[in-house]
């Protein structure tokens, strides 16, 4: 883990971790929670619609909320990288971190799949979505819930805070 020890010694990492400014670590945390709300929240709204709630909302028009999801994803990719730079050893030595990243990657794949196979299918615009579409939506819901839960558990399952220091 020489790499993470080196990363922790960089100016950016030290500033993020140790600065008393609210614009350092606390602000990154806030942005990460905002992005989560937009990304997981809009995905949940779309998934619930596909599963059958609010059936009169036209599915094709819901594609207009994809930019909101992408916006959430981009700000969370950036804030997530900053969080990783702040505590690289802490994240990379915790299996829960890889679970979280796996859920997000799979969730993003599902988000695109659902757009191509369900949202853009004119047959489903106002009619009920068939079972295989609903299964995609249910998987997506499960993945976002798992990503959020593993994100929370990251704080409670760490082995090292920084290289050489146990949590």
């Amino acid at each position, binding site marked *: 883990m020489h790499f993470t020890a080196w990363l922790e010694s960089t100016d950016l990492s030290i500033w993020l971790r140790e600065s008393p400014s609210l614009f350092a670590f606390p602000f990154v945390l806030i942005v990460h929670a905002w992005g989560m709300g937009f990304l997981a929240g809009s995905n949940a709204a779309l998934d619930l619609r596909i599963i059958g709630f609010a059936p009169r909302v036209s599915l094709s028009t819901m594609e207009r909320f994809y930019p909101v999801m992408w916006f959430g994803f981009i700000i969370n990719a950036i804030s997530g990288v900053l969080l990783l730079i702040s505590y690289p050893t802490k994240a990379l030595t915790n299996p829960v971190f890889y679970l979280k990243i796996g859920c997000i990657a799979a969730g993003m794949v599902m988000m695109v799949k659902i757009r191509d196979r369900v949202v853009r299918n004119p047959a489903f615009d106002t009619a009920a979505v068939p079972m295989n579409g609903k299964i995609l939506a249910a998987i997506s819901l499960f993945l976002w819930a798992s990503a959020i*839960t593993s994100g*929370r558990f990251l704080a409670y399952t760490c082995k090292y805070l920084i290289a050489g220091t146990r949590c």
Partner: protein
Amino acid sequence: MLKETVEAWVRWLPTTSLAVFMHGRWEWPIMESIHFLGLSLLIGAIGLFDLRLLGLGRQIPISYLHRLIPWGIAGYVINVLSGICFFTAETDQYIYNPSFQLKILSMSVAGLNVLVFYTTMFRRVRTLGPGENASMPARIIGGVSLVCWLSVIACGRLLTFFRPPSFHWCPWC
């Protein structure tokens, strides 16, 4: 008087069985996960509705999008209940915390905003069809709602940085 009442609650709530339950091995992170899921539901339903009022996704008729609002309300209820669990377990860490007080204030403004929306303009706004813009007052309501909920999230994330005894706000003392 109020000061003494609050102090009595601060002493009593953490002795309840709910507080004891919250201090188990995994109860706190599980409840936090539920709180974050509720947050996402709230933003996913109410945040998208606010964005529609502000002009995004104009092709969606307001009345259709409004059918997602019950999910936002579900997220809100989930978060009030899970929030009560945290508050009960560590009452002093919240009640005197400036960030908690600002969080409650933001929630109150959001609540008033909802009240104004449904009492003064909802009947007109709900008739807006595809491509139709909301009026300026409705846009302002949408903007205020979005800012309030983003502020609630920000204050929630900042709680840990403003904990007593380092910080101690007590406007009623």
